[in-house]
């Protein structure tokens, strides 16, 4: 009898808390986005907030900008991480030092990286000064805008900076579990280095790589502080727009803020679904 209740007893405190806070927060966000605001005396549900944002160009611009930032950051970070992992798995002198430096920013909070990028790439930043020193520009305004810019270069640089070690470490861990044997076999069968990478190693790595990329995409799509610090004010990234609407003095903007939060949640739900499927396939193999 005791055995039967053991697992639910062990699980229930954590599950109740996570369900209450996480699912509760999502549920409250959902009904709030449908116009349910009992504090303001509104108890009927409607789709006005979704209709409003889906008919506003501001929302589309923000959505597309955020999607573009997430996609670019994920692709560039993944490509660099593959390259880095391929080098770091080899044995060479100074490997442990390089490995440490490679991991250094894993524990550095995003915000610190964002400020660092700001001081490097702003028009009076380090690289602008370097360009001035070498007579490439004649003043700060000649330096290409990479902060508060429409292409969000600073934001993408920050995400790439932060995510390359993250994806790279996951790939390295995967490579360690596969070992060199499969590639060695393909090489003895006559594959060149590129073929051995493309047709042997990459397919082996792809579930882990995709899982990591999905996490990165979901994170970059919902992160607030980096675009808030490095991004232009219009169009702003979606989380920034949601926060602005939420703190707007006009309380009618709140359901719209919650509707944007739901769209962010929906997109990350798609990512989680993909991640869970990949994880299961990965476990089996």
């Amino acid at each position, binding site marked *: 009898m005791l055995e039967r209740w053991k697992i639910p007893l062990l699980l229930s405190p954590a*599950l109740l808390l996570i369900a209450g806070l996480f699912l509760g927060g*999502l549920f409250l966000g959902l009904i709030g986005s449908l116009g349910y605001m009992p504090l303001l005396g509104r108890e009927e549900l409607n789709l006005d907030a979704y209709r409003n944002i889906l008919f506003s160009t501001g929302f589309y611009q923000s959505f597309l900008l955020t999607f573009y930032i997430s996609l670019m950051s994920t692709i560039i970070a993944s490509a660099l991480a593959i390259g880095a992992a391929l*080098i770091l798995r080899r044995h060479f002198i100074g490997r442990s030092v390089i490995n440490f*430096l490679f991991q250094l*920013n894993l524990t550095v*909070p995003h915000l610190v990286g964002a400020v660092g990028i700001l001081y490097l790439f702003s028009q009076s930043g380090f690289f602008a000064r370097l360009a001035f020193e070498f007579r490439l520009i004649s003043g700060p305004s000649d330096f290409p805008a990479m902060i508060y810019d429409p292409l969000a270069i600073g934001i993408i640089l920050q995400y790439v900076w932060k995510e390359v070690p993250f994806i790279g470490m996951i790939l390295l861990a995967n490579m360690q579990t596969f070992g060199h044997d499969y590639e060695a076999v393909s090489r003895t069968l006559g594959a060149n280095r590129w073929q051995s990478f493309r047709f042997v190693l990459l397919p082996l790595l792809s579930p882990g790589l995709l899982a990591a990329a999905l996490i990165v995409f979901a994170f970059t799509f919902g992160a607030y502080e980096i675009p808030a610090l490095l991004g232009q004010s219009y169009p702003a990234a979606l989380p920034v727009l949601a926060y602005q609407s*939420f703190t707007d003095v006009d309380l009618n903007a709140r359901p719209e803020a919650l509707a944007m939060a739901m769209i962010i949640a929906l997109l990350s739900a798609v990512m*989680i679904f993909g991640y869970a499927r990949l994880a299961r396939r990965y476990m089996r193999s």
Partner: protein
Amino acid sequence: MLMQTNRHTENSRDGLSGPVWFSLILLVSWLVLPLIPLAIWSVSRSWYFPDIIPSAFSLRAWNYVFSNTSDVLPALGVTTLIALCATLLSVIIGLPAGRALGLYQFRGKALVELLILAPTIVPGIAVALGLHVVFLSLGLAGSYLGVLIVHLIPTLPYMVLVMAGVFANYNPDTEAQARSLGASAIQTFFYVTLPAILPGLLIGSLFTFLVSWSQYILTLLIGGGRVVTLPLLLFNFASAGRNDITGAISMIYILPGVVLLLLGARHLTGRSRAVESLRQI
């Protein structure tokens, strides 16, 4: 055939070629580079365009940070306290759940794992905006307790996942042996279970601390500006253009993470689960 194999071993054993070294150094410098202007700013007095290095150095920013009138030390205290409490609560609540997930197979396990994984991937802003109204009516918005509770959304699932990994490599038979020799449940926990899981628990706790330490939007939304943690202060000084103080706060803010990496770097390498969970920092 033999020659090919040899060449392969050479590639993996011996040093790197010139271009490979070059790109590796380039990448690693890029990863370290953003931290350097922050460190220099923290000891600069004046550093105007187009100076490559500051024209005057001073400890002004550091004096300000450690002075009685600055907000930095109180913020440091608040951030530390919230992170410690969030870690402790996550251990107490998350350890049993981690044990259940690591040791047992049961119906609905995949669903439970999904529920615990989800908060580590869904962005905090999507959850916290909805919670805000309830926290407001409960009087938790703008309070330390409210911020602590909302920090559990990322920290608790993280701890459960870490402990599930620890318990997956744990043999519970020794507990039964201790019990059969007359040890009480509490004695068994402290003398048998705890020593076995302690290394994993410690590393997990340190990283959980860091997860809470790094939160920005949850603190901003639920704290409503009244609970001022280090990242909020950092953001404010950065947007106000006080680069020297921003640099000094950044140096304090990254310290626990760097120390942790020095302590636990070898625990990270080769463990994809541990790294995956780092996403929240």
